[in-house]
């Protein structure tokens, strides 16, 4: 926990959690001496879903998470500065012509991972997202299609449950959503929809993993506005409050504040478990299967660090693709000044959306497309965009004094995969002697053409709503790729079931397996892929016994 202004002692969290037990030490581990069925590294969007599904199926599951097990009631504050700790703050070395902003911008730390601080925007990918190569000649096709994920999208939406419009105009799913759409939207969302309507652009109240009515003891949203700082009332879904507690009830053990530093293998090239650190002390967890749900930067970092004579270029990296084709979304912010007050601080940040420009339109001169959101902003984020644009001094102060008259439109734009955009190991080491992750990123010409189109469209919407476009802040959001899935072991790291091509009992399951980025917020697809992976693993494990000789079964077709 950040020490910013916290008057008491730093928050001390428990680090070992299983049904009926919580400890602030690792002396009473449930599975400390045994080989579990599955060890999951990372308790975020994917790890949470996997843990819940696999534990409920009766498997012995341990989840190991680098960050704390947050308590929303005592750890979360309605304050941006002190809640920066929800992001992965450890230093990454960034490069390329468009170096990425990391930390809170795109990666979570702690149980719940990125779902603790995401805006709750919950969108399915479109059919075309899985076939960008065959349809548009760019990127690569996924080894799975929309139809493969469809039942999992539906199940996840029902489970959380998602609120959204009665009719959703784009993609393959047109609603209705399990819960009704939010019935009041912010002035910023109203302005956005007014502008869209004037231009003949369809818009909707955004599908959100935020309650519009009570559910299982969780209250509907009170429009406090701090989705990115952790939801205190628990109106917003996270795996911290939903999937992880269910996994624990079903028998899983969660080890938090524990950093995995190595995946161990035997002479046959199979994974045997992981090494992790807690409070400077080294521990081990043996497992029949290991799943890396440690997102887009730490997963390649870990794999690249695990070299041996059998895996000289890192674990699961015979293709050389580990760390490559990492993608953010382009996420420029368009700020417009209005005569009337908009008050960007009020309400759920994203309450209105259009996907009118999602699919490829050859007339635009670039492939693929994007989503635009009306997007609120609190003071630290607001000033952060201004200073990132190089504004300071008197001009900065003047704009701050007009804060309440600004509206904002935010882009979530597809970024095409490119092998030059990658996660590698830097020469510099961290405090444990591990090499830091290096993250290099540059936009392509197609990416930049897409951004230019989207920025102009955002500004047209602001103008049509009666505002004056004033500032455009270059930014990114989300991360995908780096361990992509594919049918060909020479060009991808995992197969369609998220199983490593090179290692029969190692899985990688997170946004890291995305072959392309899609043009919308990725969390729902991450969770759908995780739910599908859990099903595929269970099918496979059914055919096995725990006898070591028979431990590795053939993959289910």
């Amino acid at each position: 926990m950040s020490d910013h202004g916290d008057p008491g002692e730093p928050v001390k969290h428990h680090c070992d959690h299983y049904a009926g037990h919580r400890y602030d030490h690792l002396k009473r581990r449930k599975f400390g001496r045994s080989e579990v069925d599955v060890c999951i590294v990372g308790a975020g969007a994917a790890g949470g879903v996997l843990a819940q599904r696999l534990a409920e199926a009766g498997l012995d599951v341990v989840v190991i998470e680098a960050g704390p097990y947050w308590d929303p009631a005592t750890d979360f504050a309605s304050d941006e500065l002190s809640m920066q700790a929800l992001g992965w703050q450890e230093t990454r070395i960034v490069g390329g012509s468009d170096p990425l902003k990391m930390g809170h911008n795109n990666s979570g730390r702690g149980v719940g991972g990125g779902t603790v601080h995401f805006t709750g925007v919950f969108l399915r990918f479109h059919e075309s997202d899985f076939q960008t190569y065959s349809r548009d000649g760019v990127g690569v096709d996924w080894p799975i299609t929309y139809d493969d994920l469809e039942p999992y999208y539906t199940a996840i939406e029902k489970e959380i449950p998602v609120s959204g419009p009665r009719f959703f105009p784009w993609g393959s799913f047109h609603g209705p959503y399990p819960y009704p759409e939010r019935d009041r939207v912010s002035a910023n969302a109203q302005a956005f929809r007014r502008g869209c309507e004037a231009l003949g652009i369809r818009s909707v109240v955004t599908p959100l993993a935020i309650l519009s009515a009570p559910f299982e003891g969780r209250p509907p949203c009170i429009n406090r506005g701090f989705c990115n700082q952790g939801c205190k009332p628990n109106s917003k879904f996270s795996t911290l409050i939903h999937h992880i507690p269910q996994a624990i009830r079903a028998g899983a053990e969660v080890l938090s504040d524990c950093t995995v530093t190595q995946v161990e293998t035997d002479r046959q090239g199979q994974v045997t478990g992981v090494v992790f650190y807690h409070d400077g002390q080294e521990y081990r967890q043996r497992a029949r299967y290991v799943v890396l749900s440690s997102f887009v930067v730490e997963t390649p970092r870990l794999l690249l660090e695990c070299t041996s004579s059998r895996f000289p270029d890192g674990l699961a990296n015979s293709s050389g693709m580990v760390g490559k084709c990492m993608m953010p979304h382009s996420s420029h912010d368009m700020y417009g000044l209005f005569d009337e007050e908009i008050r960007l601080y009020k309400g759920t940040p994203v309450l209105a959306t259009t996907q009118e420009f999602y699919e490829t339109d050859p007339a635009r001169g670039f492939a693929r497309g994007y989503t635009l959101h009306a997007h609120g902003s609190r003071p630290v984020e607001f000033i952060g965009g201004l200073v990132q644009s190089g504004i300071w001094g008197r001009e900065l102060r003047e704009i701050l004094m007009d804060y309440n008259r600004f509206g904002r439109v935010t882009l979530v734009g597809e970024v095409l995969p490119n092998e030059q955009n990658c996660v590698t190991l830097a020469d510099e080491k961290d405090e444990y002697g591990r090499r830091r992750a290096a993250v290099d990123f540059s936009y392509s010409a197609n990416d930049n053409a897409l951004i230019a189109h989207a920025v102009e469209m955002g500004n047209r919407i602001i103008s049509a709503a009666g505002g004056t476009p004033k500032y455009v802040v270059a930014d990114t959001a989300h991360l995908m790729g780096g361990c992509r899935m594919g049918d060909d072991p020479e060009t991808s790291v995992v197969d369609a079931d998220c199983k490593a091509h090179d290692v029969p009992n190692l899985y990688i399951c997170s946004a890291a397996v995305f072959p392309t980025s899609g043009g919308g917020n990725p969390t729902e697809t991450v969770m759908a892929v995780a739910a599908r992976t859990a099903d595929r693993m269970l099918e496979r494990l059914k055919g096995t016994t725990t006898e070591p000789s028979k431990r590795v079964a053939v993959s289910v077709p």
Partner: protein
Amino acid sequence: MTKTRYPEFDVMREQQAWDTHTRAIVAKRLETPPKSSADKGAWREEERALLQCVLTHLLYEDRDEILSFVTGHFEQTLGRRYGEAQRKRSTPAQDQLVAAGLDALDDVAKHRHAHAFTACETEQQYGILHDLQLGRLEAVGAMAQLPQKELFTKLLSLAAEAYASHPTVWSEMGYAGPAYPRGYYRIESGLRDPWEPVAERNEEKRDSKNGNDVQERGRSN
């Protein structure tokens, strides 16, 4: 126009409606001097004075109580163990960058104006920071070893995140503040909850002088 449109508003008047955790965090920012800067004590008085002088330009702000909070944020952030999320290759770690950077500003000031930075004229100080942002400072003294634009960005971003976290600045922006457990109810256009600020009525009509010219700026790197 750097004056607030909400001269009557004080966001702290509503603090009893906030959860105790949030209230404690925010209220502490109004303590003078902030306890945090006192117990770290890692910074020399001259360093603190130089930083504060830089901040008056970066933030167009001269109120001591606000600047000392921002300075305290620098000390706290640069003194903690965990990382800075991202750093470019060949850029020193943020604590070294800022410490060396402040020394380097003095070196440039002495080279240009034969005075320490704090002893320079206001215009001269501004000119140095202006050139730092553009990476155009003379490579003299410690400045020869430093990435100038990275230094400027680090100073400005640390300053800005603290500045926009100070309750006095919240009040002036018309930001109505934390809202848990009560929430915001009247969120639609033209509506406001009773505790939210009201813009001063006889405020002169201020229109954007620049009209339609959109200022597109890339990152300053």
